[in-house]
Protein backbone atom coordinates (compact mmCIF):
# COMPACT_ATOMS: atom_id res chain seq x y z
CA UNK A 1 0.00 0.00 0.00
CA UNK A 2 2.73 2.46 0.92
CA UNK A 3 4.44 1.82 -2.40
CA UNK A 4 1.29 2.93 -4.22
CA UNK A 5 0.38 5.77 -1.90
CA UNK A 6 0.49 8.27 -4.76
CA UNK A 7 -2.17 6.38 -6.71
CA UNK A 8 -4.38 6.19 -3.64
CA UNK A 9 -4.18 9.96 -3.21
CA UNK A 10 -4.76 10.36 -6.95
CA UNK A 11 -7.97 8.32 -6.82
CA UNK A 12 -9.19 10.18 -3.75
CA UNK A 13 -8.51 13.56 -5.38
CA UNK A 14 -10.23 12.52 -8.58
CA UNK A 15 -13.29 11.23 -6.78
CA UNK A 16 -13.37 14.39 -4.66
CA UNK A 17 -13.41 16.48 -7.82
CA UNK A 18 -16.04 14.27 -9.42
CA UNK A 19 -18.20 14.45 -6.32
CA UNK A 20 -17.89 18.24 -6.25
CA UNK A 21 -18.89 18.43 -9.90
CA UNK A 22 -21.98 16.28 -9.29
CA UNK A 23 -23.14 17.27 -5.84
CA UNK A 24 -22.16 20.90 -5.30
CA UNK A 25 -24.88 23.36 -6.20
CA UNK A 26 -22.61 26.34 -6.74
CA UNK A 27 -21.10 26.74 -10.20
CA UNK A 28 -17.79 28.16 -8.97
CA UNK A 29 -17.46 25.22 -6.59
CA UNK A 30 -18.05 22.93 -9.55
CA UNK A 31 -15.21 24.65 -11.40
CA UNK A 32 -12.90 24.20 -8.39
CA UNK A 33 -13.90 20.54 -8.37
CA UNK A 34 -13.02 20.31 -12.04
CA UNK A 35 -9.58 21.80 -11.33
CA UNK A 36 -9.04 19.31 -8.50
CA UNK A 37 -9.99 16.45 -10.82
CA UNK A 38 -7.46 17.77 -13.31
CA UNK A 39 -4.65 17.92 -10.74
CA UNK A 40 -5.49 14.35 -9.78
CA UNK A 41 -4.88 13.24 -13.34
CA UNK A 42 -1.68 15.28 -13.56
CA UNK A 43 -0.52 13.66 -10.32
CA UNK A 44 -1.16 10.23 -11.87
CA UNK A 45 1.02 10.96 -14.89
CA UNK A 46 3.84 12.68 -13.04
CA UNK A 47 4.10 10.09 -10.30
CA UNK A 48 4.17 7.30 -12.88
CA UNK A 49 7.12 8.97 -14.56
CA UNK A 50 8.99 9.57 -11.30
CA UNK A 51 11.93 7.27 -10.61
CA UNK A 52 13.31 6.96 -7.11
CA UNK A 53 16.88 8.20 -6.87
CA UNK A 54 16.71 9.78 -10.30
CA UNK A 55 17.70 13.27 -11.33
CA UNK A 56 15.69 15.92 -13.13
CA UNK A 57 15.52 15.43 -16.92
CA UNK A 58 18.03 18.15 -17.75
CA UNK A 59 21.45 16.87 -18.70
CA UNK A 60 24.29 18.19 -16.62
CA UNK A 61 27.18 19.82 -18.44
CA UNK A 62 29.53 16.92 -17.63
CA UNK A 63 27.03 14.19 -18.54
CA UNK A 64 26.24 15.35 -22.05
CA UNK A 65 28.90 13.44 -23.92
CA UNK A 66 28.85 10.28 -21.84
CA UNK A 67 26.54 7.42 -22.76
CA UNK A 68 23.30 8.14 -20.95
CA UNK A 69 21.65 5.71 -18.57
CA UNK A 70 17.90 6.25 -18.91
CA UNK A 71 17.18 5.15 -15.34
CA UNK A 72 19.15 8.13 -14.04
CA UNK A 73 16.67 10.71 -15.34
CA UNK A 74 12.99 11.21 -14.63
CA UNK A 75 10.63 10.45 -17.50
CA UNK A 76 10.34 13.55 -19.74
CA UNK A 77 7.42 12.24 -21.79
CA UNK A 78 4.79 12.23 -19.05
CA UNK A 79 6.03 15.64 -17.96
CA UNK A 80 5.51 17.35 -21.29
CA UNK A 81 2.05 15.87 -21.68
CA UNK A 82 1.08 17.45 -18.37
CA UNK A 83 2.98 20.70 -18.88
CA UNK A 84 0.77 21.67 -21.78
CA UNK A 85 -2.27 20.34 -19.93
CA UNK A 86 -1.76 22.87 -17.12
CA UNK A 87 -1.72 25.92 -19.39
CA UNK A 88 -4.62 24.62 -21.45
CA UNK A 89 -6.37 23.87 -18.15
CA UNK A 90 -6.07 27.51 -17.15
CA UNK A 91 -7.43 28.65 -20.51
CA UNK A 92 -10.41 26.30 -20.23
CA UNK A 93 -10.89 27.39 -16.62
CA UNK A 94 -11.15 30.94 -17.93
CA UNK A 95 -13.76 29.76 -20.42
CA UNK A 96 -15.70 28.04 -17.64
CA UNK A 97 -15.54 31.17 -15.51
CA UNK A 98 -16.82 33.19 -18.47
CA UNK A 99 -19.79 30.88 -18.82
CA UNK A 100 -20.46 31.20 -15.09
CA UNK A 101 -20.27 34.96 -15.49
CA UNK A 102 -22.82 34.88 -18.34
CA UNK A 103 -25.15 32.71 -16.25
CA UNK A 104 -24.84 35.21 -13.40
CA UNK A 105 -25.69 38.03 -15.81
CA UNK A 106 -28.95 36.36 -16.71
CA UNK A 107 -30.07 34.84 -13.40
CA UNK A 108 -28.18 36.83 -10.73
CA UNK A 109 -27.12 33.70 -8.93
CA UNK A 110 -24.52 30.95 -9.03
CA UNK A 111 -26.86 28.44 -7.43
CA UNK A 112 -28.00 25.63 -9.65
CA UNK A 113 -31.42 25.19 -8.01
CA UNK A 114 -32.33 28.85 -8.40
CA UNK A 115 -31.21 28.84 -12.02
CA UNK A 116 -33.37 25.80 -12.77
CA UNK A 117 -36.28 27.42 -10.95
CA UNK A 118 -35.95 30.61 -13.01
CA UNK A 119 -35.75 28.66 -16.25
CA UNK A 120 -38.93 26.85 -15.24
CA UNK A 121 -40.63 30.14 -14.47
CA UNK A 122 -39.64 31.57 -17.84
CA UNK A 123 -41.21 28.65 -19.68
CA UNK A 124 -44.48 28.82 -17.78
Amino acid at each position, binding site marked *: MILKFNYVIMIILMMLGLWAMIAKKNIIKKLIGMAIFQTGIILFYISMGAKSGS*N*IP*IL*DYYDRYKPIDAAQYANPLTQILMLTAIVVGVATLGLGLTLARKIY*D*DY*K*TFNEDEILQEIKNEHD
Partner: protein
Amino acid sequence: MINIFTWASILLIVLMLMLVYRIIVGPTVIDRIVAVNVIGTKSIVLIVLMGIIFDRLAMFVDIAIGYGLLNFIASLAAAKYFKKHHRIDSKNITATEHTAKGATNGH
Protein backbone atom coordinates in the same frame (compact mmCIF):
# COMPACT_ATOMS: atom_id res chain seq x y z
CA MET B 1 25.25 18.41 5.76
CA ILE B 2 22.64 17.73 3.06
CA ASN B 3 20.83 15.62 5.64
CA ILE B 4 20.35 18.74 7.73
CA PHE B 5 18.65 20.47 4.81
CA THR B 6 16.35 17.47 4.36
CA TRP B 7 15.31 17.64 7.99
CA ALA B 8 14.89 21.40 7.69
CA SER B 9 12.47 20.93 4.81
CA ILE B 10 10.50 18.29 6.73
CA LEU B 11 10.30 20.72 9.65
CA LEU B 12 9.05 23.42 7.29
CA ILE B 13 6.28 21.13 6.02
CA VAL B 14 5.24 20.26 9.56
CA LEU B 15 5.07 23.97 10.40
CA MET B 16 2.97 24.44 7.26
CA LEU B 17 0.55 21.87 8.68
CA MET B 18 0.17 24.19 11.68
CA LEU B 19 -0.74 27.02 9.32
CA VAL B 20 -3.37 24.83 7.67
CA TYR B 21 -5.23 24.99 10.99
CA ARG B 22 -5.53 28.75 10.52
CA ILE B 23 -6.74 28.23 6.95
CA ILE B 24 -9.46 25.87 8.15
CA VAL B 25 -10.55 27.85 11.21
CA GLY B 26 -9.71 31.44 10.26
CA PRO B 27 -12.84 33.44 10.95
CA THR B 28 -12.33 35.98 8.17
CA VAL B 29 -11.03 35.66 4.63
CA ILE B 30 -8.02 37.84 5.40
CA ASP B 31 -6.88 35.37 8.07
CA ARG B 32 -6.89 32.69 5.40
CA ILE B 33 -5.04 34.91 2.93
CA VAL B 34 -2.37 35.57 5.58
CA ALA B 35 -1.83 31.86 6.11
CA VAL B 36 -1.82 31.16 2.36
CA ASN B 37 0.66 33.96 1.84
CA VAL B 38 3.03 32.45 4.41
CA ILE B 39 2.65 29.03 2.77
CA GLY B 40 3.45 30.61 -0.61
CA THR B 41 6.61 32.26 0.68
CA LYS B 42 7.71 29.04 2.32
CA SER B 43 7.19 27.20 -0.98
CA ILE B 44 9.98 29.34 -2.39
CA VAL B 45 12.26 28.23 0.42
CA LEU B 46 11.26 24.59 -0.02
CA ILE B 47 12.01 24.69 -3.74
CA VAL B 48 15.51 26.01 -3.04
CA LEU B 49 16.00 23.38 -0.34
CA MET B 50 14.92 20.66 -2.78
CA GLY B 51 17.46 22.05 -5.23
CA ILE B 52 20.15 21.44 -2.62
CA ILE B 53 18.83 17.94 -1.92
CA PHE B 54 18.81 17.12 -5.65
CA ASP B 55 22.28 18.74 -5.93
CA ARG B 56 21.12 20.74 -8.99
CA LEU B 57 20.55 24.12 -7.37
CA ALA B 58 21.04 26.15 -10.57
CA MET B 59 18.00 24.49 -12.17
CA PHE B 60 15.65 24.95 -9.22
CA VAL B 61 16.53 28.56 -8.52
CA ASP B 62 14.68 29.72 -11.66
CA ILE B 63 11.41 28.30 -10.35
CA ALA B 64 12.00 30.00 -7.02
CA ILE B 65 12.63 33.35 -8.73
CA GLY B 66 9.38 32.97 -10.66
CA TYR B 67 7.57 32.34 -7.41
CA GLY B 68 9.28 35.23 -5.65
CA LEU B 69 8.29 37.62 -8.42
CA LEU B 70 4.67 36.51 -8.76
CA ASN B 71 3.81 35.56 -5.19
CA PHE B 72 2.24 38.87 -4.19
CA ILE B 73 -0.06 39.25 -7.21
CA ALA B 74 -2.79 37.03 -5.75
CA SER B 75 -2.72 38.88 -2.42
CA LEU B 76 -2.91 42.18 -4.28
CA ALA B 77 -5.95 40.97 -6.23
CA ALA B 78 -7.68 39.85 -3.05
CA ALA B 79 -6.94 43.18 -1.39
CA LYS B 80 -8.39 45.00 -4.39
CA TYR B 81 -11.48 42.82 -4.12
CA PHE B 82 -12.08 44.04 -0.58
CA LYS B 83 -11.92 47.66 -1.68
CA LYS B 84 -15.29 47.12 -3.31
CA HIS B 85 -16.75 44.46 -1.05
CA HIS B 86 -16.05 45.53 2.49
CA ARG B 87 -17.29 42.40 4.23
CA ILE B 88 -14.33 40.24 5.13
CA ASP B 89 -16.14 37.74 7.34
CA SER B 90 -18.10 35.02 5.66
CA LYS B 91 -21.16 35.18 7.93
CA ASN B 92 -24.37 36.81 6.69
CA ILE B 93 -23.05 37.92 3.31
CA THR B 94 -26.64 37.64 2.15
CA ALA B 95 -27.66 40.84 3.87
CA THR B 96 -25.19 43.12 2.13
CA GLU B 97 -24.47 41.59 -1.22
CA HIS B 98 -27.69 40.02 -2.27
CA THR B 99 -29.69 43.25 -2.30
CA ALA B 100 -28.46 44.00 -5.81
CA LYS B 101 -30.41 41.02 -7.17
CA GLY B 102 -32.46 41.91 -10.20
CA ALA B 103 -31.66 45.60 -9.94
CA THR B 104 -29.35 45.94 -12.93
CA ASN B 105 -30.67 43.44 -15.41
CA GLY B 106 -34.15 44.07 -16.70
CA HIS B 107 -35.97 40.85 -17.25
